[in-house]
């Protein structure tokens, strides 16, 4: 417990002082270091550009021995994020058998950003979006832009 808190506090200090471009981090609740609010700008050059996405990062009490979970609180139309209230993101490095305690939250945030730039249709959670992404790129971009306007403003 003590170890976990110490490590999280250290990482929080790191991410707040030097966050990845377009990302701001704050605690959801000042008394609980295990839940982080994250505001992420849609990366430029993607259909998500101009949108502001709110995410929730939950660090388990066993952190860093258990992987954190990352959810989109703002709806996003993306092959690797469930298009529902949960907004669960399927990020490779957060999978149980892949997660390494040496991974840091900073790298999770960068990986999430990267996934917005480059969706991974082969590991999709929304099959219909993935299909559109593969077969009709222009249509995909148009639709994603519409949803970004609708939800992420």
């Amino acid at each position, binding site marked *: 417990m003590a170890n976990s808190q110490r490590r999280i506090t250290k990482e929080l200090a790191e991410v707040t002082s030097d966050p990845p471009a377009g990302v701001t981090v704050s605690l959801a609740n000042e008394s609980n270091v295990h839940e982080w609010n994250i505001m992420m700008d849609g990366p430029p050059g993607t259909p998500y550009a101009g949108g502001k996405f709110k995410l929730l990062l939950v660090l388990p009490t066993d952190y860093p*021995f258990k992987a954190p979970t990352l959810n989109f609180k703002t709806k996003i139309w993306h092959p690797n994020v469930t298009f529902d209230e949960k907004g669960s993101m399927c990020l490779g490095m957060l999978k149980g*058998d892949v997660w390494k305690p040496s991974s840091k939250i900073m790298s999770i945030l960068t990986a999430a950003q990267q996934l917005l730039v480059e969706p991974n249709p082969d590991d999709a959670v929304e099959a219909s979006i993935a299909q559109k992404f593969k077969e009709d790129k222009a249509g995909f971009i148009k639709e994603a832009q519409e949803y970004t306007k609708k939800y992420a403003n």
Partner: protein
Amino acid sequence: MFQPQPTPYSPFSSYGLIGSAPGAAAGFNYEQHRSPSVVDNGGPTVFRDPVFRPSSGLPSAFHTLSPPPRFKMEAPNPADDLDRQEAMAREYKPNLEGPLVGEKKSSVAIAEEYAKADPVYVAKTAHLPQTYSHYRQIQGDGNCGWRAAAFSYFEILVQTGDKAKIEEELARMTSFGNLLANVGGFDAWLCEDMSGETLDLLKDLASIPNQTEAMALVLEKLNDRSISDTIVYHLRMLASSWLRADPGLYQGFIQGPEGLDGYCKEMQAVNQEIDHLGMTLLIDVLLKPIGVAVEIVYLDRSEGTQANTHLFEPTDSNGVPTHPCAPRIYLLYRPSHYDILYKEITALPIRHDLQVNRATSFSHQHAVQNTTGISNFSSVDMSAILGIPGFSMQPMHNLPPTYPYSDFAPSPMSPSISPITAAVPSPPAEFPLCQKTLLQLPVSVGTPTSFRPSKYNWEAASEWQDTPTFQTNTFKNSHYNTAHYNNSNFQPEQWSPENEEPSTSRKKTG
């Protein structure tokens, strides 16, 4: 009044194995019926306390002597059976409750656990308690091999009772920081985070002189999930760095297309169970340098009635053990799980509740009752023996002074008690006392536990002197002496002048 009843095997159904047997047809595949908690379930395995405990107090090795009724003569109902199996498989989840590192228990419990399992396991586990007296359960959360090694490492350091040794180990572990950072390629912050708990515990152990207190601390720390996981992760990092430090030695054992980098990455994932190479690395980096050998007992489905063992011990470059009497750690490996075993000769339980004094041996002496009186023994207080029901004093002195053991009713255990009884002198004057001693010898039914002490002594003795030397006058000229040409290991004696040197030189100086 008391009549043996055909007992349905249902009491064991909660155990998960035989419970599915009644519905099985002949030709039933025993493999499918193995308890889900036993092996090969593909996930982390946990061995719970056995649900079934023999109420008679007999170790279950006894129960295994009679073959379990695998088939019942009822109309088979395969559909029902299959459903039950499926339900069992569906509901099975690894039991992740209980402590990470359990208390030390008698290893008879392992045999009990497996009493209804596959016959290969039954045979192997029944033999286990004869060699390893105790065991300690480790939770099967995917870290058990690492955690078992970590616990044993601290335990054996505490058992040395040597403060200097623990401090030396603290220094060695601290210096491994360089290996982790420079060779292992880990970030400095991670090394610091993960090695902290190991170093703290070593520091604490060095400052506690009392071994019991120190062990309590080790058990407490290794059961605190956060601390325990940190220590385990530190070991993963150490093993991975050790591999990178000497890839030539281990590379050949790395399977899979990912190669060394992939293997190291895999080893660093949490809850990734230790494999054979991982265990070898861990022993090489953690235990061999402090002169500790590790014996792994493999409880698998291979042929034979004894579990295979493999010994990892510190050796020099020629493969000769550098610490022949090194303290040993014993680990029990069952497919995808590790527990800790102990060999403790003194702590062997002797089952007093199972002793049967074979008073029948006196009844067949009744024909020779009326020869002499018991006045010869009047000075000896016999009241204690007379208290035994059915015991008669009279035949005792009719027995010859050198007691023929064959006069006893044949006992299945008699060969094994002979080493004890042979040591009892039986001069005529002391005869009744001698009789008393014989009476108290435990003869138990069907359990190997009661004669284990003597078996141990034998085993230990055979280890001490593999080739006995026959140097007495009687044996020197016999074929028991290796210098005799009839000896199968004939080795002629050689005269070496150096051996005589000291005496001559002493003469000169004197």
